[in-house]
């Protein structure tokens, strides 16, 4: 994204090559870097070190280096399946959030009335404020066998046996999309709102249909928002554990769920740390690759 942010205006609008000199603005990264190094890298490094030790040195001085936690992961396909489920749920949730979030973001960005805008904003933000656990319980009430949907459908005589809406990946994704779609909407709204509506109008005046004007003007210009929102939702959904835990039943197993189990009931910080390192490494790779592809894709030709 950063590359997009600085490459785009520089290359698209001013043809001269990028200046290599670091600007004084770069110092502004300081506070964030300090915060992250002391309170994220350092604690996480402790975790990573624990994942290579036979025990916790805070409790037991006689620990030795071992790769057994990683060997355990590599040697059991249950864990590989969990990693794959985690990524798959992340990708599906991200795509679904984009499909659900884009129309709403567009409406919100184009809303002229102040009251209408405030109401929409409230509708988008309210789900985020329900509290993760309560919200998940609400979804359970809707989707479970004796839930709102199944009770209604059975009452109407449309189905005889409850539909399997919960205790599987479907229910998990529905609840995850609900939780994370506001992040997508608010990120997109900021970007779509900055696209000059007159551009779309101009395209239509030139004879383009509304859909075509949207596809060729608004959509490409909102790509930064799509990318930013997708990345947020992806990151959030691969690290979620309360929702898959409650919604997925026995059919869903993700890495965060395994980490939670290891921390809270197996008390194996070493293995939990190893799972964390693996999850973070894989997702950072995904994100960096994504940024890389993005930088190419949104180069001079990509957006014009």
């Amino acid at each position, binding site marked *: 994204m950063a590359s997009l942010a600085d490459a785009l205006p520089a290359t698209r609008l001013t043809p001269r090559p990028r200046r290599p000199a670091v600007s004084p603005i770069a110092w502004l990264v300081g506070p964030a870097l300090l915060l992250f190094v002391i309170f994220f890298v350092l604690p996480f490094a402790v975790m990573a070190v624990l994942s290579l030790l036979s025990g*916790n040195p805070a409790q037991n001085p006689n620990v030795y280096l071992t790769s057994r936690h990683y060997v355990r992961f590599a040697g059991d396909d249950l864990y590989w399946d969990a990693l794959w489920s985690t990524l798959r749920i992340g990708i599906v949730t991200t795509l679904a959030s984009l499909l659900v979030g884009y129309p709403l973001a567009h409406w919100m960005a184009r809303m002229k009335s102040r009251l209408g805008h405030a109401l929409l904003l409230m509708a988008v933000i309210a789900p985020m404020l329900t509290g993760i656990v309560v919200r998940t319980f609400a979804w359970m009430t809707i989707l479970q*066998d004796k839930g709102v949907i199944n009770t209604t459908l059975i009452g109407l005589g449309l189905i005889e046996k409850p539909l399997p809406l919960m205790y599987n990946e479907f229910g998990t994704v529905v609840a995850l999309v609900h939780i994370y779609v506001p992040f997508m909407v608010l990120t997109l709204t900021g970007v779509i709102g900055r696209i000059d509506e007159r551009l779309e109008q101009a395209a239509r005046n030139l004879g383009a249909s509304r859909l075509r004007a949207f596809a060729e003007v608004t959509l490409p210009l909102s790509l930064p928002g799509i990318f930013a929102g997708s990345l947020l939702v992806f990151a959030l959904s691969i690290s979620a554990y309360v929702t898959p835990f*409650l919604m997925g039943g*026995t059919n869903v*197993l993700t890495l965060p769920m395994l980490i939670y189990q290891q921390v809270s*009931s197996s008390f194996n910080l070493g293995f939990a740390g190893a799972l964390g390192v693996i999850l973070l490494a894989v997702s950072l790779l995904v994100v960096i690759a994504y940024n890389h592809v993005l930088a190419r894709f949104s180069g001079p030709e990509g957006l014009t």
Partner: protein
Amino acid sequence: MTANRLTRRAVLSAGAAAALATIGAPVILHAQTATLKITTWGGKWGDIMKAELLPAFEKEFKCTVSADQAFPFVPKLQASPKSNPVYDVLHTNSNEQWSSLDLGLVEARLDHKKIPNLADVYPYAISDKIVGVSIFTSAIGLGYRTDKGLKKPTSWKDFADPALAGMRGGYIIPVNSLGQCHLMMLGKIYGKGFTDLDAAYKALEALKPIKLVDFTGQMEKMLLAGEVNMGVIHDSGVLRYEGQNQPIDFAIPSEGVMALEQVLNVTPGSKVKELAYAYIDYMLRPDVQKKLAETVWYSPSNKKVKLAPKYDARLFNTEAKVAQLIQPDWKWYNARKDEIDTRVTRLLKG
């Protein structure tokens, strides 16, 4: 001049004294009121602890109690230095005490001389299946809906009734000790004994489709809402709705119930061990036990507790009733936990 200097000296020394007093005060205060760091449950248990029992303890022993109600306790204890543990007294279920012992986080054996009330507890509370002392127990059996035409279950085998397919409730075994107890019970019922895992796995698979939850409060809700018609649950989770006109009841299978013990233990690095022992002794006092038992429907482990009739009728508070309690061998289970977790997860998935 002299007067002036005197005054200045007086002011200076008064200032110094004041400064010293300010700095010293917290130290003196600290010396007077030691802090006892404990873990405790929330809910109605926590309410009564915070409103009555802990303030009374603080008053009697001239200390302050810092009671942590935010799970998970053992990982926090694990992450704190051994010489300066985040808790002095650890209150957990029995299985976690065994894990804690393995990790060197709790004492292997309590000093019985420092807990006079131990003389009055049922033997199960300090048996070799317990690390520390069990102050209460509840009984893991079957909770069921009374309005679905179900016969009151008399055996653990009734849980496998095909009519209950998809309407029976169990626990996510890796994270819930009730689920772990149930697994051991399956080995006993369908195999050679509590340690017959192969029979237990087979029996568990036969219980599919089954709805699994991660904590007992959720099982209570599923029973109340009719999402399940029968579920593995402890008596307290069903009995606490007594008098609220809910169509649920608790059944004690003939093969026996598993004990879900509330265990207290002291951490080796505690700097206020005397106080820690005093607290454990306090929690075993008959009046304290009675109050908590009648709040959350836990069976007290002190024999001298006299419960009101409605509690007396259902809780495990006589030698004969206590004999129905089966104490799981957590040392054995924890040693195999990883293997069991993987196996069970694979078995129930898909």
